[in-house]
């Protein structure tokens, strides 16, 4: 068919690679990453962790402050289980949405439990003789991330 403006669809042609070859390529990549993890050929690891209803990008020796209470005493070791992403220099492990517990281990220690600085909440309507002032001090918890470890159990 001659090439006119309507002979082929107006969207660009999209071709996916062959599934069998893709599966082989994927298996190869997974094997290589497993070997790298088992051999320990990664530098510093970073992880994205879902904790206290927020997502944090953490490495080891990191300090984190949450704006609420934690039912753990100072000096307790804590394991963070909801890990979304772990990465090193050469590879990243992306969780869909979470990574397995046998794959990553993130440990943290509770360092201090304090109150925040006195935050001032004020409301004021002009010409109406209305002003309210409230001072809020939220409890805060400071954690130190000790280690992030990964284990070679990819499949």
């Amino acid at each position, binding site marked *: 068919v001659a090439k006119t403006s309507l002979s082929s669809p107006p969207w660009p042609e999209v071709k996916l690679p062959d599934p069998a070859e893709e599966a082989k390529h994927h298996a190869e990549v997974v094997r290589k990453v497993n070997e790298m993890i088992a051999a320990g050929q990664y530098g510093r690891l970073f992880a994205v962790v879902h904790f206290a209803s927020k997502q944090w*990008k953490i490495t080891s020796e990191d300090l984190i402050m949450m704006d609420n209470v934690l039912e753990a005493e100072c000096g307790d070791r804590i394991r963070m289980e909801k890990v*979304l992403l772990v990465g090193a220099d050469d590879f990243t492990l992306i969780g869909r949405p979470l990574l397995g517990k046998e794959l990553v281990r993130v440990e943290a220690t509770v360092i201090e439990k304090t109150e925040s600085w006195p935050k*001032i909440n*004020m409301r004021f309507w002009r010409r109406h003789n209305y002003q309210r002032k409230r001072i809020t001090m939220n409890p805060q918890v400071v954690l130190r991330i000790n280690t992030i470890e990964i284990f070679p159990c990819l499949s």
Partner: protein
Amino acid sequence: MVFLSAPRWLRSRLTDRFWRVQEVLKYARHFRGRKNRCYKLAVRSVRRAFVKSTKARREKKRFLRALWITRIEAASLEHGLRYPTFISNLHKSQVELNRKMLADLAIYEPKTFKSLAALAQRRGQEGFLAALGDGKEPAGIFSRIVHHH
């Protein structure tokens, strides 16, 4: 004997006026002009400052989210993807990173962001091909022109 005029000499007088005034002036010390020294002007400025900080705490969340979206848009355009495509494809691939994380990864972990962009692009292509279908017409429908005699 009861001294009746002694209680009249003991008035209740304000003794800690200095500290009450300092309570307000301490929040105004870094202001510009006479409102960092004079109580009457400082009271007004400090009140406005408190109200503004209260309202700003609510708007900071909106402002930061817009900033993250701008940054993710810029980073994904560097990899040839638009922001809505990127976010929707990431959601469809069950990656639940929020915009704050994506912006931080785009700044500090460029390789990771590139792999996320590749993941989103591949998911977009798969979705597009699934929507196109086989190229055949659905069963039971014919599209040639029917002549009535």
